[in-house]
């Protein structure tokens, strides 16, 4: 055998002093060892005969380790000073060889059996005197080693005797030394050269001190275990060990073993596996011993630390590698240089340091054996020596997620939580380009620690013509771990191998772009593995958690755009307005693929600004092209095409057809519109994720074609075939609209069903109508559709469309009917147009439409139509506060309806007449008409009409101050509303009831009603109703003196009025706000609101409101102390009220005028106006003002000092208020009366009454209560 080969076999480093001895003679060995010690160290191999370059293995007598032990002891005894020399037997080709490793000595000169030897080349000789003297002198120059210096430890108190005993036991077991006195600790320490003259050396302290760290803190070992591979401040486990060296060495080792997982090792030849520590324990031990033996102990800031990370282990010690030793040499093996020979010697004797100069090689081998990456040593003067072990390399055959991956934080967290829980199979489904793979990769990256045995991605080619077969997929997984493995032929064998490879392996598989369940099912890994599947199709597997990946949220989409754009843009423009990004994101359908492409395109097109780009993208025909394919592997079009091409022709057509749905739709619609029987094609599209599906219950849900997919399809369909499908679409949704309307008319729960049906399909309905409207001029079926749309959904549309939208619909429908000259429909739509304008407060315009309708209906002698038109006109004039004119029209209408025996119409006319007489301040007449209407409705069984009439009666009695009676009627009406399920009117009745209770001073009850009403209005989306309820609530809170709340409600109501174009309502809200601010004492603000209200009322010719606004302004100025101005406003109000014969307001304003004159102390004038007021309101039985006027008169007489008269008047007011149960009024009148009594000196009575007033005012929570208290305090 060549020496070189032998050296390799013995793992001896090359270029090192090496001596071969055929025999094993102690004295020869001793002399050579001594020579090595005194020079540069070296190796001695016994049992080999070397001639020239050829080595003959002879072996040594090694029975029971005789050779080793005898040599061992000969050296231990014969060498002086005692030092570490390692002796091992190694078997090569059946022969036992003795390998003795000798480090270069640190305590020169050494002698063997009292003779000092030296070595030069291959020879050993006795040192002569000169050489010895030189050695001695050289030794003197060396500074004393730290380990050799005396420690301050006390030999009696500070040493760990137990540790010494253990050392002795170790040494004796290995027979490495013989102690003369094994019981005497001090003798042992001296023998081990760590104590002398009663003093322990530092080396001795480190080895045997009870707690050497007290004296030398650098001795502590710190060990920490971190949860991630990045250095972080949080650790899972952290320990600091201190004590004698060997125990802390063991503790450190245990810490490492405890904190590094054991893993299953797959043995290559047979599909077997075994559990082993992730790092070879021997290597860890070796690494630690090296650190303890070779560290720099002198430096107080030094130490040893162990850091355990999931993927690596670092053992660090202070100091540097000995001179001449480099990390490269460590890897190859090197000569041994002892940094701390005394400590090392003891470690050696105890069996801890066997392999001098070869520890690093053994570490490397251990790692290699376990398939670990090569460990690394780094060393630096100041940085210390670090040995890093690396965990088994993860088989990561998975690319990293895109750099600019935009956080799908929510989804990622959800999936991570799933993995943290019991789920380990995740399916990501979604349209092409939605970012399934990117998310899967991101998830995989975040799960590396959970799957330490690797991550393998397999492309399942689900969208290609030849998808990956399960066998191919399994083979690629097997090869990821065992590249050379031969794959069996039979699939079942492959499966067995596949499962064995993954058995107990914590690996994560990503099956990307899977075709279907079948393809994936066969690849089910064992439980310990994670499985991620991405697919455009629905994958259903046992235990699989499926996430349907939607497009990005707007904010995320914008972020992605910006990220991609700013990372690649050459443009100096760094700021782009947010709305532009929003536009682009929306136009890209929030689809990551499109966003990425668009942002890249933009970044690479310096001459196109984002704003311009956004503008250009708006053109649907060129959008896909414009998004382009920069920065993406596949453009959007191509990505869709992958799925599209895989579809059967028939299904392709269905996809194209389905793309005309502008919004989500249900299966039934699709069946009809796309002519897809049993929506089989749709289901197939869903499997391909070309449409999206949101289940809403068993077997029903909503489908949606992604916006860009829609464009993709649209580009592939001819205009002709598009037109055909769109017509079917428009037709279908016209029918649906009609169905919704019918549901609504059925009442009860159907109302909501009808409305929600409309809401759900609004986008489709609107698109259907829009298509019909666009094509009505050229396409006769479109024209017919266009005409029928408004009528189909009359009631529903009334609630759901903004009057302006309604007007649009009606105008196109009108144009269509004019085209086909359907005069009857023309009249009807003109009427409807009128009503829409009336809703907008454009009463004059409404009247013009009604008049046109009237002309047509008269022309074609449509009497029913004529009646309706006249009725509409009547109502319009009512709105314009021209009750006489209103009555005139209504009477005409009544005549016609009676003539043609349209009883329903007749009822409506009677109701309208009632309203008009109410407006005229003739409540008795109003009641008369209403009762007629009611009787009629009952006669013909018109429950809806009956309800309306009862409501009107209620209002009339309310006007009469007969609130209880009013309530009775309202309740009846409410009952009917509920019976027929007319939610809309139910809301109105509740509102009426609320107001009635307000009048009774039962504000809390009123609020309850209003809130119920509000809930209903909101439920059915009746915005107008909602506004009214909010305003009512505002009034109620105003009654409670909670002005801020009142203002809040009115402001909400105002917003709604504004939104729905209800200008009449808007005016009323402004009026209320004015009043509320007035009550708050913020008079200026009150005036501002009232002036706005007044302006609006004048604009829309709402004269009744004009009166009220003027009145309010009057009150406001009175509050400001400007009675003259107040008088001016009140007089204006009175003039208008007289003009429109609004007796109620006339009476009220006269009373207000009276109050103003009272302020001016023109008492007589005040009495005059109040009396006039009394005349009017008494006649029209406007009780509330009647009471108020009595009160004001009482105040006037009180001013004049006519207390008795005043008291009489107060009593009259009280009588009225009490009858009305208008408690607020009662309280206030009692208060006034008590003041009068007080002035008369009838104090007892006054106090009694004031107390009563207080009680009532407190009950109705009137702010006036405080004034009473003030008075009582006096």
């Amino acid at each position, binding site marked *: 055998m060549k020496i070189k080969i032998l050296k390799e076999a013995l793992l001896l480093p090359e270029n090192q002093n090496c001596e071969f001895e055929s025999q094993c003679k102690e004295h020869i060995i001793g002399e050579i060892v001594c020579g090595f010690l005194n020079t540069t160290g070296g190796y001695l191999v016994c049992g080999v005969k070397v001639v020239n370059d050829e080595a003959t293995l002879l072996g040594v007598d090694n029975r029971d380790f005789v050779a080793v032990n005898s040599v061992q002891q000969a050296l231990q005894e014969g060498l002086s000073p005692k030092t570490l020399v390692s002796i091992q037997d190694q078997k090569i080709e059946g022969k036992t060889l003795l390998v003795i490793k000798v480090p270069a000595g640190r305590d020169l000169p050494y002698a063997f059996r009292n003779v000092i030897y030296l070595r030069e080349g291959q020879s050993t000789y006795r040192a002569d005197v000169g050489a010895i003297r030189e050695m001695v002198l050289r030794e003197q120059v060396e500074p004393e080693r730290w380990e050799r210096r005396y420690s301050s430890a006390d030999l009696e108190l500070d040493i760990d005797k137990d540790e010494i005993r253990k050392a002795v036991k170790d040494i004796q077991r290995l027979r490495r030394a013989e102690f003369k006195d094994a019981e005497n600790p001090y003798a042992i320490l001296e023998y081990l050269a760590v104590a*002398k003259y009663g003093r322990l050396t530092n080396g001795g302290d480190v080895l045997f001190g009870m707690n050497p760290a007290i004296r030398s803190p650098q001795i502590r070992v710190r060990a920490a275990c971190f949860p991630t591979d990045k250095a972080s401040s949080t650790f899972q486990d952290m320990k600091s060990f201190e004590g004698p060296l060997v125990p802390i060495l063991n503790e450190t080792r245990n810490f490492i073993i405890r904190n590094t997982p054991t893993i299953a090792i797959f043995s290559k030849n047979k599909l077997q596996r075994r559990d082993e520590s992730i790092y070879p324990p021997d290597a860890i031990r070796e690494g630690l011993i090296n650190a303890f033996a070779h560290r720099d102990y002198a430096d107080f800031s030094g130490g040893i630390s162990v850091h355990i990370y999931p993927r690596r282990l670092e053992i660090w010690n202070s100091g540097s590698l000995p001179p001449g030793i480099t990390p490269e040499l460590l890897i190859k093996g090197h000569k041994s240089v002892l940094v701390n020979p005394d400590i090392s010697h003891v470690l050696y004797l105890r069996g801890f340091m066997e392999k001098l100069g070869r520890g690093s090689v053994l570490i490397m081998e251990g790692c290699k054996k376990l398939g670990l990456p090569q460990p690394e040593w780094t060393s630096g003067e100041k940085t210390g020596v670090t040995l890093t072990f690396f965990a088994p390399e993860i088989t990561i055959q998975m690319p990293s997620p895109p750099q600019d991956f935009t956080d799908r934080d929510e989804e990622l967290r959800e999936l991570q939580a799933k993995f943290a829980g019991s789920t380990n199979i995740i399916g990501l489904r979604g349209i092409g380009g939605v970012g399934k793979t990117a998310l899967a990769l991101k998830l995989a990256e975040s799960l590396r620690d959970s799957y330490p045995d690797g991550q393998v991605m397999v492309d399942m080619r689900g969208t290609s013509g030849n998808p990956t077969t399960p066998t191919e997929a399994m083979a690629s997984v097997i090869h990821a771990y065992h590249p050379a493995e031969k794959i069996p032929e039979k699939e079942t064998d492959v499966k067995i191998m596949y499962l064995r490879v993954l058995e107990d392996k914590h690996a994560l598989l990503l099956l990307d772009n899977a075709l279907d369940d079948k393809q994936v099912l066969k690849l089910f890994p064992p439980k310990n593995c994670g499985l991620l599947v991405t697919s455009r199709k629905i994958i259903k597997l046992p235990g699989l958690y499926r996430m349907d990946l939607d497009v990005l949220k707007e904010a995320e989409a914008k972020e992605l755009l910006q990220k991609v754009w700013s990372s690649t843009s050459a443009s100096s423009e760094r700021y782009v307005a947010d709305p532009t990004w929003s536009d682009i994101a929306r136009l890209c359908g929030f689809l990551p693929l499109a966003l990425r492409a668009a942002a890249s395109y933009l970044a690479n097109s310096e001459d196109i600004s984002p704003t311009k780009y956004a503008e250009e993208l708006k053109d649907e025909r060129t959008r896909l092209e414009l998004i382009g394919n920069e920065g993406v592997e596949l453009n959007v079009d191509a990505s869709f095409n992958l799925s599209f091409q895989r579809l059967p022709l028939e299904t392709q057509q269905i996809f194209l057809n389905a793309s005309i749905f502008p919004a989500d739709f249900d299966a039934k619609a699709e069946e009809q519109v796309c002519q897809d029987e049993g929506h089989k094609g749709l289901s197939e599209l869903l499997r391909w994720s070309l449409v999206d599906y949101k289940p809403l219950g068993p077997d029903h849900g909503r489908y949606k074609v992604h916006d860009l997919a829609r464009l993709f399809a649209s580009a592939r369909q001819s205009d002709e075939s598009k037109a055909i499908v769109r017509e079917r679409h428009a037709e279908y949704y016209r029918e649906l609209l009609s169905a919704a309307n019918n549901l609504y008319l059925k009442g009860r729960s159907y109302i909501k069903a009808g409305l929600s049906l409309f809401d759900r399909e609004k986008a489709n309905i609107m698109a259907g109508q829009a298509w019909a409207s666009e094509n009505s001029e050229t396409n006769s079926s479109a024209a017919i559709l266009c005409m029928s749309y408004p009528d189909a959904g009359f009631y529903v549309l009334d609630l759901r469309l903004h009057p302006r939208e309604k007007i649009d619909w009606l105008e196109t429908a009108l144009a269509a009917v004019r085209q086909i000259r359907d005069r009857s429909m023309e009249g009807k739509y003109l009427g409807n147009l009128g009503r829409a304008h009336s809703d907008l407060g454009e009463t004059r315009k409404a009247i013009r439409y009604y008049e046109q309708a009237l002309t047509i209906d008269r022309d074609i002698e449509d009497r029913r139509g004529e009646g309706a038109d006249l009725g509409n006109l009547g109502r319009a004039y009512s709105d314009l506060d021209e009750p006489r004119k209103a009555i005139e029209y209504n009477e005409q209408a009544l005549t016609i309806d009676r003539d043609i025996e349209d009883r329903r119409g007749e009822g409506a006319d009677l109701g309208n007449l009632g309203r008009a007489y109410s407006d005229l301040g003739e409540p008795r007449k109003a009641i008369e008409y209403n009762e007629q209407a009611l009787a009629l409705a009952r006669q013909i069984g018109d429950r809806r009409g009956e309800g309306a009439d009862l409501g009107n009666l209620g209002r009339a009695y309310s006007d009469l101050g007969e609130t209880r009676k009013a309530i009775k009627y309202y309740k009846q009406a409410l009952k009917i509303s509920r019976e027929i399920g007319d939610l809309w009117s139910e809301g109105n009745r509740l509102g009426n009831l609320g107001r009635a209770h307000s009048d009774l001073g039962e504000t809390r009850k009123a609020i309850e009603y209003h809130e119920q009403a509000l809930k209903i209005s909101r439920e059915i989306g009746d915005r107008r109703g909602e506004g009214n309820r909010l305003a009512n609530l505002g009034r109620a809170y105003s009654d409670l003196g909670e002005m801020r709340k009142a203002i809040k409600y009115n402001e909400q109501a105002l917003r709604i009025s504004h939104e729905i174009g209800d200008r009449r309502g808007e005016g009323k809200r402004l009026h209320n706000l004015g009043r509320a601010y007035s009550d708050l004492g913020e008079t200026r603000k009150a005036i501002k609101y009232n002036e706005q209200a007044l302006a609006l009322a004048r604009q829309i010719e709402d004269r009744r409101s004009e009166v009220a606004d003027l009145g309010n302004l009057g009150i406001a100025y009175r509050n400001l102390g400007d009675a003259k101005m107040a008088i001016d406003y009140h007089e204006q109000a009175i003039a208008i009220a007289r003009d429109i014969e609004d007796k109620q307001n006339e009476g009220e304003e006269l009373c207000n005028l009276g109050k103003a004159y009272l302020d001016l102390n023109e008492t007589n004038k005040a009495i005059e106006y109040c009396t006039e007021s009394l005349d009017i309101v008494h006649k029209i039985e406007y009780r509330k003002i009647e009471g108020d006027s009595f009160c004001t008169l009482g105040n006037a007489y009180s001013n004049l000092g006519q207390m008795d008269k005043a008291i009489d008047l107060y009593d009259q007011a009280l009588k009225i208020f009490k009858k009305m149960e208008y408690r607020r009024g009662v309280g206030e009148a009692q208060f006034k009366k008590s003041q009068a009594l007080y002035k008369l000196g009838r104090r007892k009575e006054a106090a009694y009454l004031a107390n009563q007033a207080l009680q009532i005012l407190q009950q109705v929570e009137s702010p006036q209560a405080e004034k009473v208290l003030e008075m009582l305090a006096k």
Partner: protein
Amino acid sequence: VVADGGKMKDSRKLTIMVSSTVYGIEDLLDQIYTHLTAYGYEVWMSHKGTVPVDSSCTAFKSCLDAVDKCDLFLGLITPQYGSGKDRRERSITHQEILRAIKLKKPRWILAHDHVVFARSLLENMGYKGKKGRKTLSIKKSQIMDDLRVIDMYEDAIISQKPLRHRNGNWVQKYDKNNDAILFTTAQFSRFQEADVFVQENFEDMERVNKALKDRGGHS
């Protein structure tokens, strides 16, 4: 292949008696033995069993006889006093040193720092001289087991005589083994070199002493 590198030129070797307690300094004695042998002396050291022994008398007597017979004397005073025939008698090492002084043997004495330090410490505390220390007793320990090591040291430096009468009072303090080895090497490797010189001056102790004094050290 072991070559013999350091043979003595002269067949007749000088004998050197190494006198010390053994306990605790075995390694140092081993080294001293090695060095002195290497320098060509015949070393009499009880630790090594090289002291000529007369089987008819006690070991004590043999040792004192060896002092009589040796050419040179190297004494080591360590913190361990060693033992005599009984507890109260001077230890054999002490007796050997006194004998060497009495015989005016060319002598070299190494004293461990503990001893030198303890003496000056006690002096400064007022316990001067053997008498001064009489009242003191020491707990036996590895640091020092008997105050008589100080007596031995004072005997070696001939402290009871006035300074001018102190001849051959050369005592080298040492702390670590290295110090002792350096001293040994320095003193005795030169003697070996100047073999003739020693021969010539063998009868004249004063000259030997003087020659030694010139080479440094203190007393």
